[in-house]
């Protein structure tokens, strides 16, 4: 269980329920200084893991949210030409216009390299970017350095950041990329795990409510024709909604009345389908 008997470094954080396997993988990756690639359907806590590692190891977390049009250089550094132009025109800033270096701003990867302390670098949803981005990034992460062309300077990582990369598995990443990462696929949490997760978020939740909501949640996930199944995040919000409703009784749920379906199903077609389905079941 998660009492952490044989974990060395990372043993979970206050808002994150960690399974032993994953802790092991995180620690191996950190020791081998390899990026850890996490795949899994939305809501399995891929992003949360990075937050949890940062919290547990007391490191700063730097998040690079990958966008589809992103170029790698944006993640490394930015040359602020406009400010320089402005300074050269008005000359009222404390910066030295002839020194380009003063106009270089570090991007997220750059920040993680120049930081004095070791940081956690989360590269979120890498699959959004095109293959070029991924391949270019490999070299940078492999060598732990990059060049700033404008000032002909190489930035080396002072401390190798702990790198967590997430992918929503929309498409496979390239082989060379995979070759340089450790890989883990986070399965959707099972019943027991989900109970633990809910308890972490609502320590004082009653057993009745916990049982019936979790059971109901898994039944709802099984509905057919649902495009976006509710995930952990939705369940937590739903429990929160149920708990804050003074009129809500656990009995209703057992009888088959499911309030706040909209918290669980965010697409109108899904919502309708769920509503139809709910009419036909009892928990």
């Amino acid at each position: 269980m998660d009492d952490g008997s044989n974990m060395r470094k990372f043993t979970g954080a206050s808002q994150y329920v960690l399974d032993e396997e994953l802790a092991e993988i995180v620690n191996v990756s950190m020791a081998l200084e390899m990026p850890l690639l996490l795949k899994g359907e939305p809501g399995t806590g891929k992003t949360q893991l990075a937050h949890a590692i940062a919290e547990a190891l007391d490191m700063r977390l730097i998040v690079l949210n990958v966008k589809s049009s992103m170029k790698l250089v944006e993640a490394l550094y930015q040359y602020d030409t406009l400010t320089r132009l402005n300074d050269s025109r008005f000359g009222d800033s404390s910066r030295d216009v002839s020194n380009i270096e003063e106009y270089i701003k570090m991007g997220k990867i750059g920040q993680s390299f120049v930081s004095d302390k070791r940081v956690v670098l989360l590269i979120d949803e890498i699959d959004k970017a095109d293959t070029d981005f991924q391949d270019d990034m490999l070299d940078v992460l492999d060598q732990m350095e990059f060049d700033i062309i404008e000032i002909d300077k190489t930035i080396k990582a002072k401390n190798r950041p702990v790198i967590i990369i997430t992918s929503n598995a929309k498409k496979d990443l390239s082989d060379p990329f995979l070759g340089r990462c450790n890989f883990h696929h986070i399965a959707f949490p099972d019943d027991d795990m989900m109970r633990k997760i809910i308890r972490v978020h609502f320590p004082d939740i009653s057993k009745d409510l916990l049982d019936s909501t979790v059971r109901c949640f898994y039944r709802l996930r099984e509905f057919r024709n649902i495009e976006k199944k509710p995930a952990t995040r939705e369940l937590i919000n739903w429990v929160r909604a149920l708990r804050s409703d003074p009129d809500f009784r656990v009995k209703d749920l057992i009888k088959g009345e499911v309030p706040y379906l909209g918290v669980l199903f965010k697409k109108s077609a899904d919502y309708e389908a769920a509503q139809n389905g709910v009419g036909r079941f009892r928990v």
Partner: protein
Amino acid sequence: MVSAASGYECRCMFIDFFYTLKRVGVPVSPTSFLRLQKALSLGLINSLDDFYTAARSILVKSERYFDLYDQVFAHTFEGTELKEPDEFVLNDMARAMLDEWLRDPGGMAEALGRDKDELSKLSPEELLDYFLERLKEQTEQHHGGGKWIGTHGTSPVGHSGYHPGGMRVGGVSRNKSAVKVAMDRRYKDYSQEGPLTQAQIGEALKRLRNMIPVGPKDQINIDKTIYQTMKNAGEIEIVFDRSLRDRLKVILAIDNGGWSMDPYIEMVQILFNYARAQFKDLKTFFFHNTIYDYLWEDPRRIRKPFAVDDLVRLDPDTRFIIVGDASMAPYELMATDGSIHIEERSGKPSYQRLQFIADTFPYALWINPKMTQEWRYTHTINAIRDIFPMFELTLDGLEEAVTHMMRKH
């Protein structure tokens, strides 16, 4: 600590483990193996459980292979018998064939080229064995061929469904035997060469994004800014460019009705889901077999009809992509009352409707999950090819389709 002798044994075991993984088809690289050695030497791995997790995360890079990994692991370290990977596949396939037989004995017997009554005498277990045997023959002798069914293209019409009084009688299309369908399903998960995978579609559809500058003017053009500033004798003038934005409009019309499309739905669904992520502006419609007066916005084709006549109001630059097997009874396409649905009787035959769409959208095309070599056996495919350029639903086909769509008209 382990003694030297058992350490050596261990190492041999690991090497054996590595090669077994490779043999059953898990793509493992020597680099990753060395990395695993490094992890071992760092003292990170102290138990078999640790080894299981660490080795998996280091060696195996896709959850697709987790199951295989488990089997090899159990085989190497716990001595369980390792089944030949083919056996799994074949067993499942034979089972799928049995299911198919129970549903449609006639079609199955015909596909196998055996007498139905003869096969009926066998018990389900015997049948299963029989199917398994046939499948083994198949994998040994005709890898990738798939012609052993032997009745390829028996029907020039390409569809076994009847159409009496507007009702479709369920049945499997003859051009595509149940056996082949069963094999399709199995191979999809295992083979990298099979039909389109999500990754491949992504690659092909990516080419659809044509970047045209219609975004807001919020990109600073440094060169022009400096030039203008110089011209102004140093008074700064900032020049903005439009940022690039993906404005490609796409309409996807998917044939999701009828048995004949059944085996392809999943593949099409992947394509469709992927497309959704790729384009900002995407409409998806559904139809059954061919298009008459209406397209449908809901997959069940009940709630949200969209009149084909209204398509003229949409941007003619829209890429109109129809996905369907284009296989049906000829009169469904040609007759003035071809539609199954009674309310769709405007008197215009489907081929006129298709022609109308082709005229409205110069970038319209048809993507067919049937392979090119099957096309000429089906009359309606030929007829539709006269209206739309048609491409097969493979990576190559998609690439051609994309090239076609990006061409200037």
